[in-house]
């Protein structure tokens, strides 16, 4: 009996400790990023947000082009990816038992898990090589491919969550299937679809790997056309961390804090308004 009691105690203590070990890194990360990044942003002031990158070992400058680039890339990726993703989600929800419907659902699950660096390499080969230059368009296409499965899966689940009687009611009014879906069901499922859209946006705004060989990066020029290279905050951090210069490391921390704030600003309200999310 004693042995069982000891085992029980050890077990409870063990899982409690391991649980806190699981989330400890999150707090350590937030703490580190805030401690290292906040002084940089405060020192840089407005210039840090709107200025361009400083030369090595010479002050802070700013990360303006990267911030603009992240917004441009996210916007373009949404433009390219959202319509296709939502329509694909509708298909999977409307025809769940058809061959294409089943296959689509499996494909979407696979794409969610797919290594994002491979998407970047793929887009490089089909778009950057023929065009002869890195471009915002290539970066946006890579991000759109990463974003699509999240949006499609959320759309599908939101539509399938609409009670059957609404669909029956709409059909009983004599609406065509097109109108049933677009005038009735989409409206009822809008919260779920919007969630998927925002999750997708939060995801791609922080992506680095798909942009490595597509967006090209730009630290001193602002966005100047979708066929030109463009910067992004994650890409900038990745480049700066690998540089030997002390001031570049500082800028990287400042940029990380900014990225963290952008991510939490989209993600936290979203997560708190829901029961669970898929990532």
């Amino acid at each position, binding site marked *: 009996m004693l042995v069982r009691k000891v085992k029980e105690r050890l077990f409870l203590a063990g899982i409690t400790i391991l649980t806190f070990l699981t989330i400890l890194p999150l707090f*350590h990360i937030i703490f580190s990023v805030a401690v290292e990044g906040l002084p940089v942003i405060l020192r840089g002031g407005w210039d840090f947000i709107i200025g361009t990158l400083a030369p090595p070992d010479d002050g802070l400058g700013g990360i303006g082009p990267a911030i603009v680039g992240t917004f441009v890339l996210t916007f373009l990726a949404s433009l390219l990816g959202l319509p296709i993703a939502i329509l694909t989600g509708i298909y999977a929800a409307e025809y769940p038992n*058809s061959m294409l419907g089943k296959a689509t659902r499996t494909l979407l699950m696979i794409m969610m898990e797919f290594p994002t660096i491979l998407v970047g390499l793929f887009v490089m080969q089909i778009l950057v090589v023929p065009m002869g230059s890195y471009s915002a368009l290539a970066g946006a296409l890579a991000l759109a491919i990463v974003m699509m499965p999240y949006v499609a899966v959320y759309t599908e689940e939101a539509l399938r969550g609409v009670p059957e009687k609404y669909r029956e009611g709409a059909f009983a009014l004599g609406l065509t299937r097109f109108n049933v879906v677009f005038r009735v069901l989409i409206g009822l499922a809008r919260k779920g679809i919007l969630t998927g859209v925002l999750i997708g946006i939060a995801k791609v705004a922080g992506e680095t790997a798909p942009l490595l060989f597509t967006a090209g990066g730009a630290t001193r020029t602002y966005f100047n056309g979708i066929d030109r290279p463009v910067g992004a905050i994650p890409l900038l*951090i990745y480049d700066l961390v690998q540089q030997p210069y002390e001031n570049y490391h500082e800028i990287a921390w400042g940029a990380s804090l900014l990225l963290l704030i952008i991510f939490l600003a989209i993600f936290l309200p979203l997560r708190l308004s829901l029961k669970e999310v898929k990532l």
Partner: protein
Amino acid sequence: MDRFKIFLAPFCGLVFGLFILMLIVYFTSSLPIFEREGLAIYTTNVWKASEEPEKEFYGVLAAIYGSVYTSVLAVLIALPLSISFAVFVIDYAPKKLKEPLIVATDVMAGLPTIIYGIWGAFVLVPILKRFVMMPLYEHLSFIPLFSFEPSTGYSYLSAGVLLGIMVTPFASAIIREAYRSIPYIYREGIYALGATRYEATKVLLGYIKPAIVAGILLAFGRAIGETVAVSLVVGNVFNIHPSLFAPGYTISSLIANQFGNAFIYGYMVPALFAAGLSLFIIGLAVNLAGLMYLGRFKHAR
């Protein structure tokens, strides 16, 4: 066949088309290296880049080894953490703590990976080097695992630990959902038999074994595909070494590091596409297996 279906099907087709095109691009782009070297690209560890194509030779075994090594480490770390987290949150956490704990892991799962990267490179690696690697190396270096002198700290261990931290929330979300779904009657039954909480949990975990396997496989798939965070801490050296403290390469960090200047060489681009193809296939196989286990578990219920 209704018109609506015909209207929607092309969009589904487009997504499929993209995926198939991706597979085709990987096969055709890596073809030149297979024609030149055969399977030696996967079975040797050499990286001879040269302006003259005759002298070039590439073998990415070190990267494949590193990818598998670091991902296995990640899973070994994630397994106890994610199971404990799932059990604690569902069964034992005080009510007020439950939701915040789950939100915290969701934030971790969605956090931009570059933030893990900068934290890993500047914070985690020095900590690991000072408090884990140096003591183990000084006292136990006769064991092969600890035999490499940790000069920089960038190593398989650093990458494995960072990946473990990154994939734990993801594995635990899958295990948590499964653990929550165990019918209440089983719990009542086990406790009615007089089991302690430890014994009950052991039995209940046996019930969701397929979901645990699925969580681990999918976590492995995530870990092996992760790029930027790993490439900042793994050391990026062509190396096949048994020691945890040795620096190495992974497939994704190899691509991230070398692709930028690969176009000036004759065969480096195909070699990197071949490396990508191996990642493509490993990732696809592991993820499909994971999804299959998950589907089987959900179906059996």
